[in-house]
């Protein structure tokens, strides 16, 4: 079967004439359907840039990215927005909820932009909110919600359209540990129960330990890969710490 995501020799350079930063440097990997993959690396190692390229928010300098078999680097601007709508779901570090809309409407927005009928919208939003434990928060405005609830609403928005790939950039970055755990458990459940494919970027080993597979990135290059296999989360966490200490540098401090 065709993998959900195939990244082939992607490079992304910043800057022009003279100083060139290789934010992503010849990265290739594959994500199969139903996987929960983490991308770990120190701050400035190019994680966000890589994710943004996959998310079609940024354009690659060279290389190809196939999502569901389609090469997104070859799509035009108009096709891209349709593609984003149909295939992708995003969760960002800063919650990115619209503060003038209620939680319900924030989640529904992902559906209204693709013209889902309103009856279906209601059903799906409520179902997803239930699953992420934010059903009670639906009629509230973002400013009335806690950070954790907000992030779970953002997660609900990311998955409500049943995207083939969910992309998360440091989703626990601005959460306290309890909220972070609730969110991560929700993501794990989504992955296990609905076979949602998730690609999550983080610099935090605890967050990463919820994944099934970790890609380590350093200075824009893939450095190593770690599979959870049959290990428990706690054991996996220890493994990750080992690799991180191997990585050294800033990454170690981040813990």
């Amino acid at each position, binding site marked *: 079967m065709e993998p959900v995501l195939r990244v082939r020799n992607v490079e992304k350079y910043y800057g022009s004439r003279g100083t060139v930063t290789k934010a992503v440097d010849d990265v290739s990997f594959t994500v199969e359907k139903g996987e929960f993959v983490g991308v770990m690396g120190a701050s400035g190692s190019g994680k966000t840039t890589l994710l943004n390229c996959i998310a079609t928010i940024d354009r690659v300098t060279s290389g190809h990215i196939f999502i569901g078999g389609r090469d997104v680097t070859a799509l035009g601007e108009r096709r891209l927005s349709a593609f984003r709508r149909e295939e*992708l779901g995003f969760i960002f570090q800063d919650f990115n909820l619209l503060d003038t809309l209620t939680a319900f409407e924030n989640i529904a927005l*992902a559906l*209204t932009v693709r013209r889902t009928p309103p009856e279906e919208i209601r059903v799906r939003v409520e179902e997803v909110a239930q699953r992420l434990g934010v059903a009670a928060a639906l009629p509230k405005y973002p*400013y009335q919600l806690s950070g954790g609830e907000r992030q779970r609403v953002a997660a609900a928005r990311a998955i409500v359209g049943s995207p083939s790939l969910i992309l998360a950039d440091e989703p626990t970055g601005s959460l306290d540990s309890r909220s972070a755990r609730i969110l991560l458990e929700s993501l794990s459940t989504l992955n296990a129960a609905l076979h949602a494919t998730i690609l999550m970027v983080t610099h935090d080993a605890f967050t990463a330990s919820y994944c099934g597979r970790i890609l380590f990135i350093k200075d824009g290059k893939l450095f190593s890969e770690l599979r959870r296999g049959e290990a428990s989360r706690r054991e996996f966490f220890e493994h990750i710490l080992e690799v991180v200490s191997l990585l050294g540098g800033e990454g170690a401090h981040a813990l």
Partner: protein
Amino acid sequence: MLCKLAFRNVSRSFRDFAVYFLTLAFGVCLFYVFNSIDAQQAMIALSESQKFYVDQMIVIMGYVSVFVAVVLGLLVVYANRFLMKRRKQELGLYLLLGMRRTGVTRILLAETFLIGLFALAAGLTGGVFLSQMVSVVTARLFEADLTSFRFVFSPAALGKTALCFGLIFAVVIVFNTATVSRCRLSELLTAARKNETPGVRSGRLCVVLFLLSAASLATAYLWVLHTGIFTSDLGCQIALGCIGTALFFFSLSGLLEAFPRLFPRFYFRGLHCFVLRQVNARVNTAVFSMSVICLMLFLTISCLAGGMSMAEGFNAQARQQYPYGASLMYTTDGDRKPALSIEGTLRADGIAVDELIRSSSQLDLRRADVRFEDALRFFDAAALIYEDSEYTAEGGDVLARPCILPESAFNAMRRLANQPEVEVGEEEYLLWVKPTMAQYFTALPLSGVTVSAEGRMFTAAGACVTEPFATGLGIGQIALILPDEFAETLPITAQLLNIQFESRQDEDAFAAALDAVYTEERAETATGRNWRPYDILSTQHQMIDSSVSVKTIILFLGVYIGLVFLITSAAVLGLQQLSETADRAESYRLLRRLGAKEKMVRRALFSQITMYVCLPLALALVHAAVGLKALQLSFQGDLPLDILPGAAVTAGILLLIYGGYLLATCFAAQGVIRPRRRE
């Protein structure tokens, strides 16, 4: 170098400058137009009396211009402040790169100068062309000829405009310098995004308040439509309207809560819910400024449409009110002065009557002892209207001694003015009342009211006649038209000669000829009191000039102030929207990430701005429609006001200025949310 940087900045962020530029240009244009009236009148053939009024108008315009300059000044400073806020980061960067504060100030100065120069050029170009049109309008209002249409440019107005806007720029420069020198670098670099929580109001309270708003507006509307605008109740009506307006904007947001439930299909389609929420949040936090702007727009529309309709109406009225080119009245006073043919006497005194006059007719006013029988009902009703004891059945001097007009002579007058003839039977009378009182009298039941004159009884032949039968002469409040065979036996009290002329030149020549012949000396040396065959002379244009001039001043002031208010409202709304969009630029990025098409995002932005900008306009239009209707009603009978042409012109102006601002705002806002290219 400095200039180059400034020039590049302006051209690069032209979108940011759009609203600022438009405000300046409109301001300059307006200011020039209304200050160049002085020079413009050169090409209009004005009579002496008209010149006097125009001079008066220019003096008043001068004072109003000071007020306008202050308003425009505040507006420009406000617009500039927005611009500065947008550019803080850029300025911070200059400082960070090691540029000295004086250097940064100088860049700002150069920019202000550059923008000002462009705006001045654009505004003046527009102003010069527009002022030519204003001359045409002025000529039309004064019914004067455009002697020779030539392109007039007023250096004085240019100087005044340049001076005024120079002062405004000086203020702006002082303001900007202060901003730069007071600002900390860190502040400049981190343009903090204000974090407001959208004030959400309880739905039930809002429904109650909305009903209250609707009720107070409806009350105000119905009340003012009932009483007209010239009553002491107007203050209360306006207050009610203001309260209703504020409550409307206050409660609007609560009503939107019900929107998703009522129209789920519409609400949950595309970005509709986003747009509505955004507008809602904005209105919510800007209830006060929304209400003020709405009322200001209402004032603007009323000023423009009302002013224009009234000026037109007064002109039409003047022609109705003064149906003859000239009226001469000779009071005979029975025995002391003989009745005479006025025209014949004029001819005998050497006036070229036959050359100057197109047609004329003489009417003798007669006197009789008149009693209104069974008229108590009738006059009580009249008294009720006046609430003034002077007009009761017994004591009314007005009603007690009406003059008597013979039917055929009266009809001759009506023919002269192209009015339909009236008919009076053998034992019948017709009541003529002064036009200004017509609305009270025409409604009263005349049938059953018998009149006895010199002991003979007459019954009413029909409703009141109200068209004036002289130009600009006061001939009592009422008169009776009686059959010739009876009326012509009565003693004459006054004689009236009405004249029609071929042209205005003839009319003026006639008045001048009378002046030349019947001089002061002649009056002194005259033996009898009949040194001239008339006591009062009044010509149509003499009357029209005085009435039209005042109205023209009203119109010009109305348009001037109205336009300033319009520009102010539109600019403030546009700037509010722009700064709001800048604060929320992040939201639009998020929409793109959710996969909203670029076209969809742009449409969401535009409809949000359009809705926000048009909301106060919509309510103001309703207010204005009612206000204008009330204006029309208050003049009913007196002055036939045709609101439509004035309203149409106003709509055109609104479309141009308001639409212009809307476009500029959308244009600028699109620049604010434009996706930053990462490449």
